[in-house]
């Protein structure tokens, strides 16, 4: 494996300027994906997972979003500083994204064919012949096992089931053969059996194509099957990162403990089952450690200072003052 990371997010800040003030959502997020790596990103709803990934591709709606600080290095180049036309060639080809809600992610007034065709046409600088375009449209549809591709192309999103829409979104993300695929809670909006099919499909495609992956989810169980390494996010900050097995064997951050306890419950989503309280208000986030109002181990220092990342073992790091003295040099 090449040593330079494929994607490296450094100290990313994202604010939303809304009526009533500034939502300081991302507060110094750092994140690394190596070539060929499958990375999980977990955290309860509203903690900023989607925002981090949209910021990475620079597709946050601006306004209201602003990125007051940070770097997003993809293959060594800062996407935040990149010129628009070069960034466009990274999108889809370098990094591609499957959005959280397939219904919202498909344009309601264009057919699936019209939407995929546009992606195919702009996936290369070469001029494609009609038959080449057609082939490149049909192939990803076949790959995601959608029935009757020709009819699929003529359909509008409203004519498809939720599971089919999700497959269409996956197909579109694969058109340009990306190096890194971001999958934002794939299948979450669907019922459990279909979600299962979608995840299995995704796992198979990732293996076949040898993609690097960021898999976002708020349930840890899914991460365990599909990823090598996991980041845990809380209220716009990274709180823990470790190899997947290590994290499950030896969770350190108090928030991760809470997440683990919430996992076995079949109700899904509700992490608050494990930890009392909820995600703080981003208008006035708590000073110091953003988790301190909910933390059972809170200390004085937690209310005043923001914890740094402490490396506890090889690739296990945690942002919590409890581990300040346990730090080891790697």
């Amino acid at each position: 494996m090449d040593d330079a990371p494929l994607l490296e997010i450094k100290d990313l800040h994202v604010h939303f300027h809304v009526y009533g003030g500034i939502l300081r959502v991302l507060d110094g997020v750092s994140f690394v994906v190596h070539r060929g790596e499958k990375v999980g990103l977990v955290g309860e709803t509203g903690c900023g997972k989607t925002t981090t990934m949209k910021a990475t591709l620079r597709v946050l709606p601006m306004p209201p979003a602003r990125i007051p600080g940070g770097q997003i290095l993809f293959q060594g180049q800062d996407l935040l500083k990149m010129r628009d036309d070069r960034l466009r060639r990274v999108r889809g080809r370098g990094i591609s994204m499957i959005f959280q809600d397939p219904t919202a992610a498909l344009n309601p007034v264009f057919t699936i064919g019209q939407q995929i065709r546009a992606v195919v046409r702009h996936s290369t600088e070469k001029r494609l012949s009609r038959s080449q375009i057609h082939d490149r449209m049909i192939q990803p549809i076949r790959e995601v096992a959608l029935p009757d591709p020709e009819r699929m192309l003529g359909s509008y999103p409203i004519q498809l089931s939720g599971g089919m829409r999700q497959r269409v979104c996956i197909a579109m993300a694969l058109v340009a053969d990306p190096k890194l695929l971001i999958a934002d809670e794939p299948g979450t909006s669907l019922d459990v059996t279909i979600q299962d099919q979608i995840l299995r499909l995704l796992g198979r495609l990732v293996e076949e194509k040898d993609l690097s992956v960021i898999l976002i989810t708020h349930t840890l169980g899914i991460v365990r099957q599909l990823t090598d390494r996991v980041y845990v996010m809380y209220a716009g900050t990274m709180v823990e990162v470790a190899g997947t097995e290590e994290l499950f064997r030896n969770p350190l951050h108090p928030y991760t403990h809470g997440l683990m306890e919430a996992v076995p419950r079949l109700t899904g989503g509700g992490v608050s089952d494990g930890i009392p309280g909820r995600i703080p208000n981003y208008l006035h986030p708590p000073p110091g450690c953003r988790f301190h109002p909910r933390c059972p181990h809170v200390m004085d220092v937690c209310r005043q200072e923001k914890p740094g990342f402490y490396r506890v073992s090889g690739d296990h790091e945690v942002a919590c003052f409890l581990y300040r003295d346990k730090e080891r040099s790697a």
Partner: protein
Amino acid sequence: MGFVTFIGRRIFQSIFVLLGLSILIFIIARIMPGDPARVAMGARAPDWVVENLREQMHLNDPLPVQYGYWLRDALQGDFGISLFTRRNVADDVREFLPASLELVFTSGIIAGVVGISLGAISARYKDTWIDGVLRMFSYFGVVTPAFVFAILFLLLFGLALQWLPPIGRLSDGIPKPPVITGMITVDALLAGQFATFWDAFKHLLMPALALSMGALAQEARITRSSMADNLSKDYIAAERALGIPERVIMSRFLLKPSLIPTISVFALDFAAGLSNAFLVELIFNWPGLSRYGMNAMLRKDLNAISAVILILGITFTIANIVVDLVVGALDPRIRLSAERSE
């Protein structure tokens, strides 16, 4: 197939709306103070002459019977004699309606093309000075009545700069084209008389522009706000994230869904233009139906009033059907749900 039935049903419903409107017109015409027969014959006509006319006009019959006669005539395009022009109302309409339609069509095209473009530019440069200037402009456009623009343009382009002819439809000495549609620009083109077309077009431009300003500003505002709304939708983020260029997203994937509310308002603005045109027609001495209708109201010319109101009603009805058609064509959600409800 389902969509055709959907439109068919809308047309069928419209017939009832128009029937209702005709009853309303009839009732208003009959309860207006004054005896139509007396008004028609003048104050000095002897009573027996007036009584004869009353009988002839079925004014002595019960109201429902009177309505029956009235409707029968109206359906044949016979609205009786205009008390003012002393001609068949139908002939008046035939003469004045095309001039108004020419004006309203042209202003509709201006409002649509310019309004949507300005709105799109505004959304593209949202919250920059460009957007600020355009929003200010459209704000003025919406609150300023058409006649103010008419006077402004007349003074500026007609009198001060003398770019455009100030009044009328055609300059003296320019031959009129043979009447086919009654719209001089169209007739001139059909007859191949390009000099006439150009002259008529210059006459048309100022009143059409004045009449279009309100709708134009409204179009710009609606287009801007619906584009700005849709700009933060996930499908736009997804299209960007997949490498589709910004210009394609703006001009295609954002424009189409954003035009749906714009189009709905557009068709209704268009129909409203016909009734709002009267001051513009007055100022530019444009021999249109709107001015005719206003004169008829001032003079209590009942037959003419009935005809004009009915024409306005039909225009609104057609505009509504066109809205349904266009919105259905743009939005598969509406089209498909119409088909499904068959």
